């Protein structure tokens, strides 16, 4: 029954855009273990713009492929063109989605136990979080996307309030040349912007749930809105927090705490509420996709047990990862390294295009 709920539901273009934008905004609120190695400040501002542009050519193969298979997602296309490659793709997608659930749960726990409730038990936080995510998965994709749309409106409204609360702290002296650290720093940061865009993996799997064939416009909706919001938040962090922002573990949280001290008393609690909602939606989306891929991988429908099993695996792994920052670093780097996006969103569709092209040529040669 659960699998039917996961498979069948159709969602609108706007709902998918809202879901993907919200899950992408998760990146604003996480602890990045490589902060001191990656460029920040104004370099990141120009990198977001370059990353926005670079993402488009990277996705050309996948769009060329999906254009010819309307209503299908990348996994379904892979299975149709090559059943063996389809299995391999399902395994890859499953692994990445499960790792994303683990990372989300671990980040959720780390944020709450370091910035909000240092005395809280990481174990219980992760268990309660995973339980709630499982419940969301049980409700299905439609419910998750509807909740995401509501949350996105709340995120936008809180963003406006944040700006209103922080306008007096703006200091444009913090805006120095984005190329100050050199072009290589900009390039490195640009590549990170593309490779850390894990929601592209979710996008190529969720297109089969769209009630329309407008995949490109869905992508543009997500791409424009998510990059705009990330850029605005990064800009605010640079002009408001300045040098200090680069040393903060959670700069966006610091901004909310700061805005609270100005106009809205304890405004940081709004961020915590949004953070909880965003984390749950992100984990639920990836858990849905991981469960779907595991079903495809095994070729059987296990119903409710597959999400429960994945949820349990994610919970145990997240408890381990949240308890050791070195493990989180490994997990984060494995997801942000670019391999998931490169293998599943660039290489896989390119190989599939080659197989399809070869398949088209062989009958023609046979006819000749």
């Amino acid at each position, binding site marked *: 029954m659960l699998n039917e709920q996961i498979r069948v539901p159709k969602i609108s273009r706007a709902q998918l855009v809202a879901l993907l934008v919200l899950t992408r905004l998760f990146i604003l609120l996480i602890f990045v273990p490589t902060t001191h190695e990656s460029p920040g400040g104004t370099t990141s501002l120009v990198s977001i713009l370059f990353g926005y542009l670079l993402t488009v050519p990277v996705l050309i193969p996948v769009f060329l492929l999906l254009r010819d298979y309307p209503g299908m997602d990348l996994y379904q296309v892979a299975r149709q063109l090559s059943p063996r490659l389809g299995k391999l793709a399902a395994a890859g997608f499953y692994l990445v989605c499960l790792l994303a659930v683990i990372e989300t749960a671990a980040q959720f726990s780390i944020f709450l136990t370091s910035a909000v409730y240092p005395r809280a038990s990481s174990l219980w*936080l992760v268990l309660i979080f995973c339980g*709630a995510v499982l419940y969301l998965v049980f409700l299905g994709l439609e419910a998750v996307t509807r909740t995401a749309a509501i949350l996105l409106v709340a995120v936008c409204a809180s963003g406006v309030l944040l700006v209103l609360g922080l306008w007096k702290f703006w200091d444009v002296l913090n805006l*120095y040349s984005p190329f*100050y650290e050199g072009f290589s720093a900009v390039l490195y940061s640009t590549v990170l912007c593309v490779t850390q865009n894990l929601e592209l993996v979710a996008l190529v799997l969720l297109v089969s749930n769209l009630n329309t064939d407008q995949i490109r416009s869905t992508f543009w909706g997500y791409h424009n809105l998510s990059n705009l919001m990330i850029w605005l938040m990064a800009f605010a962090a640079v002009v408001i927090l*300045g*040098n200090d922002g*680069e040393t903060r573990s959670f700069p966006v949280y610091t901004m909310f705490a700061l805005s609270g001290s100005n106009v809205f008393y304890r405004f940081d609690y709004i961020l915590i509420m949004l953070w909880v909602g965003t984390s749950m939606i992100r984990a639920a989306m990836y858990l849905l996709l991981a469960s779907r891929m595991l079903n495809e991988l095994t070729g059987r429908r296990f119903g409710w047990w597959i999400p429960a099993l994945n949820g349990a695996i994610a919970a145990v792994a997240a408890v381990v990862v949240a308890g050791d920052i070195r493990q989180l670093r490994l997990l984060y780097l494995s997801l942000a390294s670019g391999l998931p996006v490169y293998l599943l969103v660039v290489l896989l569709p390119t190989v599939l295009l080659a197989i399809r092209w070869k398949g088209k040529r062989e009958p023609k040669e046979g006819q000749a």
Partner: protein
Amino acid sequence: MNRRRMAVLTAFAVSLVLCGCMNRVELKDRTIIRMIGVDTDEEGFVVTMLQFSPQAKPGEQNSSSAAVVIQTSGRSISEAVSKVSHYNGNEVFLGNSSFLVVGQEAAQEGLERTLNYFNANHEVSPELYVAMAQGRAESIIRAKSQEGSNPTQLKSLVEQGRRNGLLGRPTLRDVMNRLQSNRAEPYLPVLTTVELDGNEDVLKIVGMAVFRDGRLQDTLSIEQTRGVLWATNELNRALITVDFGEEDASRASVELKKSRSRVKVEIVRGYPVFHLSIRSQGSIREVSFDRGGGAQVDELTEIQNQVAETIRATVRQTIDRVFFEQKSDVFRYSEFLKKYAPTYWKEHEKDWDRLIEKSRVEIEVSCQIDHPGLENKHHQIVKMTRSA
């Protein structure tokens, strides 16, 4: 079966709203700190805290509060703060702290080692006011405890000081921001205690402490503090009294309500020249001369010029002392250089001290007084009659 599942899930979902109850600490089990003073000694840090201690009795509608001073010491601030629990077993809560005072000796040893604890503490607001004590921070906290445990009075002292041009932006976030910068330096307001009516100690703002490499370098007077604030575009209001007229026989007090300063950077013959322009706007509060008061419209230009010259002289004196003599970049000129001449700055950043010696700061001040005030020029009749 489905109903049972739903019941279990619903119960689980309801438990989510109770997550705030995890590891809760009752208010009575907290030691709520309103003000903190940090000094140093041979062992490490001496932390003096003003505790908020409500004195409400059952059935009372309005509770009073007593000021309790707690002093602990330790090799680190964390160690000293944790020792508070030795007194009553309670945990320290810094979420309500609104003021941090750093002792002069602690400031001399380095501001960052003192502020890091507060910057990394999740309970402390980034808008925590930071000041330096002239002497030991303990004396400021103890003086406050005599007045009562209401730190809003101190907060209001600082806020009024900011509005009246006695202070800059002395918050934890601003200070940390400057400490994290490559070369810009922080400054802090300096507080001291003065005896009032022979027994009670009250707090007074006496100037500004400027730092170099995060260590206390110099303390400035109130007048020089204004010079810094004019140069850094942080002065909201100031009252200036100038002499004008023939042989400077007349005196005008001008209230500057708006001041705006801008810095432009130019590289001339291999060295930076900072062009500082200050635009002030104000109105006349008082004009007096030997035999009368008030001002005429055609005297406004002369008063304006005198005010501009006074501002220019104050800023010049401050920049000469702080930037050129002490080599303390509280004016953030290094950041202007990084922003407007990034290539030059990258090449010369390590040679900043020598760059300061070779650089120039050119100051241009203009003042706009658009109204002579409510009083027209008038002379004392008696004097007029006599001279007639």
